[in-house]
């Protein structure tokens, strides 16, 4: 915790220097480029678009650096905020589908949160989650992604999405409740459906063959 605070103070010094000399901003660029690039690429799934958007994020950050106010979060939170807005703007102006990138590990974590759905087997979790995620709107999705897939604290989620911390907590709780309800209504996909169809076709074929 102490080292984190020291890091934040050192970072703040760099930011203050960068406000006077923009060339110093290069240190922040080097530190956070990869993180922001990956964050954007997870949402657009296109390397060249992600690089364009990442450049715009850093350009905006540099241009508006004099307005930056330290609020106890790492500088990356401010970059995430700009990146989120930039990605939203990109999808408003394009017809491309918004991408959700998830790892199995996060699926398990989310299902641990949906306590009632413990009965869902691990193999069935991912297809069920895909169906559930498609029912969420953009803002709900952003909260879910930042909280569960990016593992951000509520305070940081609130800062990135420009809402209060309480609001972020309430919204997350509501999303979890919504997902629970939807999971109750949605039956997990039947894996043996295809086998039953094949078996029926086989039997029908056999009957026809016998008749002939």
């Amino acid at each position, binding site marked *: 915790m102490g080292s984190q605070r020291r890091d934040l103070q050192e970072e703040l010094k760099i930011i203050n220097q960068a406000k006077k000399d*923009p*060339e110093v901003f*290069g240190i922040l*660029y*080097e530190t956070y*480029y*990869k993180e922001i*690039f*990956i964050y954007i*690429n*997870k949402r657009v*799934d296109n*390397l*060249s678009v*992600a*690089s364009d958007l*990442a*450049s715009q994020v*850093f*350009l905006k950050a*540099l*241009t508006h650096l004099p307005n930056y106010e330290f609020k106890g979060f790492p500088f990356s939170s401010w970059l995430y905020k700009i990146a989120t807005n930039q990605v939203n703007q990109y999808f408003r102006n394009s017809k491309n*589908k*918004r*991408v*959700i*990138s*998830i*790892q*199995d590990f996060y*699926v398990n974590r989310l299902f641990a949160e949906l306590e009632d759905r413990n009965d869902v087997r691990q193999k069935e979790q*991912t297809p069920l989650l*895909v169906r559930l*995620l*498609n029912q969420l709107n953009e803002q709900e*999705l952003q909260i879910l992604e930042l909280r569960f897939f990016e593992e951000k604290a509520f305070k940081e989620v609130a800062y990135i999405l420009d809402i209060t911390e309480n609001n972020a907590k309430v919204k997350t709780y509501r999303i979890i409740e919504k997902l629970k309800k939807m999971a109750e209504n949605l039956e997990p996909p039947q894996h043996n459906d295809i086998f039953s169809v094949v078996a029926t076709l086989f039997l029908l074929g056999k009957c026809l063959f016998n008749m002939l």
Partner: protein
Amino acid sequence: MENEENKYQININKPVPSDQEINQFKNFNRVMQQYKRRTGHRKMQPNFLQRMNRYIPVLILAIIVLIMVFIFRLVNEKKNNGQTAPSPKIETPVQE
């Protein structure tokens, strides 16, 4: 994993781009150039205009109002002149 019904494209366990791929796109000089172009453009604005930035719309509005008052007065004066000054009578010569 993508269906036609799906609102979102969902990628599961897709590998993150490598450091090498990401570094190909990293270019701080380009960001600096764009920044200089942007801020340089602002410096091109004359200082006088920058200082007068707030008052310029008010000034333009005042000029428009003055011009309108001037035109209105001019038209009004012309009208008044037309009403007060009697038009000269044209006498037709009587033929003998």
